[in-house]
């Protein structure tokens, strides 16, 4: 097995084009498991660890006047937790639940996207904030894929054979975000089900992301529209009054309805659906309470 170690993004793209049998490796926390179990036997490994651009994040102007974080695909979870908790609270909360400290030091969002597992923890918060994945190939240059279009099947994505993931573009949080993950032990556990929500008061919109409860990570569009509409018609976005428990509950039920879970060794389909409704209800109430207390922006 060859080990390719490009030192720049351009070299990485060139290597990707020249060696179709090469598999990219970032933190290696998914890929090495596959290699150790002999599930994959690539002709070469394309190590992205020396490509400095991938390990950086920056903030720029985004669409609609907001600010956008450009998160390099190779920024490990530990740094997201330490450095981006204020700008990307949902993703940082998700990052905090990934594996163990050792895994968080190595594992990356780019790798989570590369694997595109329905249980990947980065996906729900990306969906909830409408993140965009920037991918690039030597032949066709860069293109941007909305997160909601990125996941195409169980462990399949819209990434083409000759492309690499460059970065994820996420709007800087304009309102509260939450992430919840159920597992059968209190650390180091793959999600039985997961849920992310984001309030976008600037657009009077609600974002959602569901994990581990469908063949792909997915949004719950009906629940999003329902809640945003109800908040709007009750004037709650402006008044910041109480979010009625019944409304949160109805939102939770709609989130659960958006899932299509299976029974497996980690949990039953019925439990996955049930837990989603609970997580969605609780987390939207937390987010709303945060919104109510967010005096800085209320002024």
């Amino acid at each position: 097995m060859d080990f390719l170690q490009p030192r720049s993004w351009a070299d990485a793209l060139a290597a990707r084009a020249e060696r179709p049998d090469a598999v990219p490796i970032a933190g290696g926390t998914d890929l090495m498991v596959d290699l150790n179990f002999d599930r994959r036997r690539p002709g070469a490994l394309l190590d992205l660890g020396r490509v400095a651009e991938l390990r950086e994040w920056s903030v720029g102007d985004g669409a609609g006047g907001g600010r956008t974080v450009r998160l390099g695909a190779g920024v490990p979870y530990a740094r997201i937790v330490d450095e981006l908790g204020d700008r990307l609270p949902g993703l940082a909360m998700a990052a905090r639940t990934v594996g163990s400290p050792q895994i968080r030091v190595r594992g990356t969002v780019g790798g989570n996207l590369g694997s595109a597992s329905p249980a990947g923890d980065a996906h729900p918060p990306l969906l909830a904030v409408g993140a965009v994945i920037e991918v690039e190939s030597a032949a066709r240059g860069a293109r941007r894929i909305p997160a909601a279009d990125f996941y195409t099947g169980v462990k399949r994505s819209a990434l083409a054979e000759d492309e690499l993931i460059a970065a994820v573009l996420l709007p800087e949080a304009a309102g509260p975000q939450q992430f919840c993950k159920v597992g059968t032990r209190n650390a180091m556990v793959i999600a039985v089900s997961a849920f992310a929500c984001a309030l976008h008061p600037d657009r009077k919109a609600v974002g959602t992301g569901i994990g581990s409860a469908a063949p792909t990570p997915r949004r719950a569009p009906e629940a999003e529209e329902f809640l945003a509409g109800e908040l709007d018609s009750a004037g709650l976005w402006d008044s910041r009054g109480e979010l009625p428990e019944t409304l949160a509950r109805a939102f939770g039920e709609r989130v659960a309805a958006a899932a299509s879970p299976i029974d497996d060794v980690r949990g039953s389909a019925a439990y996955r659906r049930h837990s989603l409704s609970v997580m969605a209800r609780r987390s939207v109430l937390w987010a709303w309470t945060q919104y109510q207390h967010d005096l800085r922006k209320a002024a």
Partner: protein
Amino acid sequence: MSTEAGTRTTATSSPGRVGDSPLRPDGTLKVTGEFAYASDLWHDDMVWGVTLRSPHPHARIRGIDLTGALTVPGVTAVLTADDVPGENAVGLEHADQPVLASEFVRYEGEPVALVAADHPETARRAAARIRVDYEVLPAVTDPRRAMDEDAPAVHRPGNLVRHLRLRRGDPSVTAPVVVSLDVEVGMQDQAFLGPESGLAVPAEDGGVDLYVATQWLHVDQRQMCLALGMPADKVRLHLAGVGGAFGGREDLSVHVHACLLALRTGRPVKMSYGREESFFGHVHRHPAWLTYEFGAERDGTLVYARATVLLDGGAYASSTAAVVGNAGTLGLGPYRIPNVAVDAYGVFTNNPPCGAMRGFGCVQAAFAHEALMDELADAVELDRVAIRQLNGMREGDRNITGQVIDSAAPVAELLQIVSELPLPPAREDGADLRSLPGSVGNTTHGEGVVRGIGYAVTYKNVAFSEGFDDYSTARVRLEMTGGEAVATVHTAAAEVGQGLITVEQQICRTELGVERVVVHPKDTTVGSGGSTSASRQTYVTGGAVQAACAAVRTVVLERAARILDRAAADLRLDGEKIVGASGEVLTGLSDVLGEDAVEETAEYRHRPTHAIDPQTGQGDAHVQFAFSAHRAVVDVDVELGLVKVVALDTAQDVGRAINPDAVVGQIHGGSAQGMGLALMEEIVVTDGHVRNPSFTDYLIPTILDMPPMQVKVLEYADPHAPYGVRGVGEPPTISSGPAVAAAVRAACGKPLRRVPIRPEHITGT
């Protein structure tokens, strides 16, 4: 005496005698990653062995075509059942398991063929090219169906491994208060961190030396000699670094396989399982189905107990019969019960073989008798501590096999202690997520969280039972080396991480009054040390080391007596000196020993145990009993079914703590393992197939699942045991799980009759 975990100072500077806590010699190496485990074994010139295993739970082998494997460059040997020179049958209690399957495979993962090659990768690829022609047969995978008339027979003559029938008093007596329940216990794995590994080195005399991680060198050797068709002096075993055992290394794994390949190739052969293979490479804890009924007076005093216990033994006998023995004779817990009817069964199925695991039959039963004791408490409106104290066994009582409990049985006291330990503070608003159910999964900020408290108590037999000739051998040598007295202790008793080597050193220091004690590598050039299981090594091998030291001391003091012209009875050995009755130094040890070494070998046997009556189950089956109690405090998110164990406190009588730190370590680890079974640890088997053979989906507790513990250690010396010791390793694994399960039930108000308790059992979805 009672000590609290952590409050006793670790005595690095102490002399390291009995009752001290000297640092273990392997401790620093393990923490720094330098300890050589069996998987680190290496020999120049060695080749790698791998095992081809059955993909089917039950099939007939019509033929095996090795051509594909033999033609792979680098392959040095490919072996099947035809290449086993001796008996193609091994087994701990019954030799019923083929070394390599010949006509039938009886469980998924059963070894069928072996390959040796110059690289493990080459060996694996070659093994994948072996073509086995299987005729898949109907499998028995539900043990409740195993004894049905029409069930396929796993072995001739049928699927019953053992039925233990126990009757005491009047089994048909009635009582005013009756409670009953059914309980189911899932299949737990030992989940030791060091997978099975060994290195077989062929010797010039035609024999073989095997370096292997195991629990009992001599029982391995006995089986290997039969399979290899070689005498014991040609099959020599050496203990390699063991990364945990918990019962999972009592049966053979790589042993015969590696030797077969080494003898065939004439090269050293290393075999080392990966994590997935390890799940197929050792026995598991028996899953159990238990039906229990208690009858009591209106004040809660037990009148009778009736119980049926069914254990799934899987495809081969392993130690199922002995586990049935424990589940039957001890399966009603440490209670006074005048009238008893117990039927315990172990059956064959085409599921993975089950055998020894820490707690050995008592673990499964405790989930049933402790849940039922809570039911009884509720029925007679007593609290859960009081009902246990009312019925708890006391010294001098007879247990359900009629055996007199002839040393301390402090059931009531242990419960009193745990019930009076400080409770954890109430949960605060805004508490750190890590202290809540679901942890950083951020699933609750307090919503739905209910606290529950549960109690459980157990007693467990120590050492081997039912008439087994259970002994250990120790050889101790005392000599002067470089001006210093050095004792060398040689036993074949396996150190599996529990700290036996430290205990052996402590006993030598205490008995011989020397500082330096060398522990000879464990091997079969000394007599059997018996099994490192049944909480027995400090007791039985400790007894042998004490006896060997005494024999050495006698020789030395007799020599000193001659030199000093005094009576040997008035002399003692202390600090490398011969001292008189009032402690006055008479001469140095070096003057007595000179250039000579004094070496003595001793065997130690505990008091004999006896077979039980086949009709009534009555008899003195056990030699010693160890008692422990736990109190668990849990926070349950009742809406999501997630659990945070907030406190898991315990009290245990250890007779005498030879090494108090090691005792507390055993109690911590055992408690975690019991809690794991209550909440998460299960090998999920569907139609004979293991669905989660990995640490991704076989979950064991992490540091965020295990709370800090308050540990109270009682030391009521057992007058029949060396130093008064009582086995320590197993009781915590038995009483912790039922206490946790009881606490979860108390929090959520559901019966929860199956463990591990899964979130969906709590939520009902």
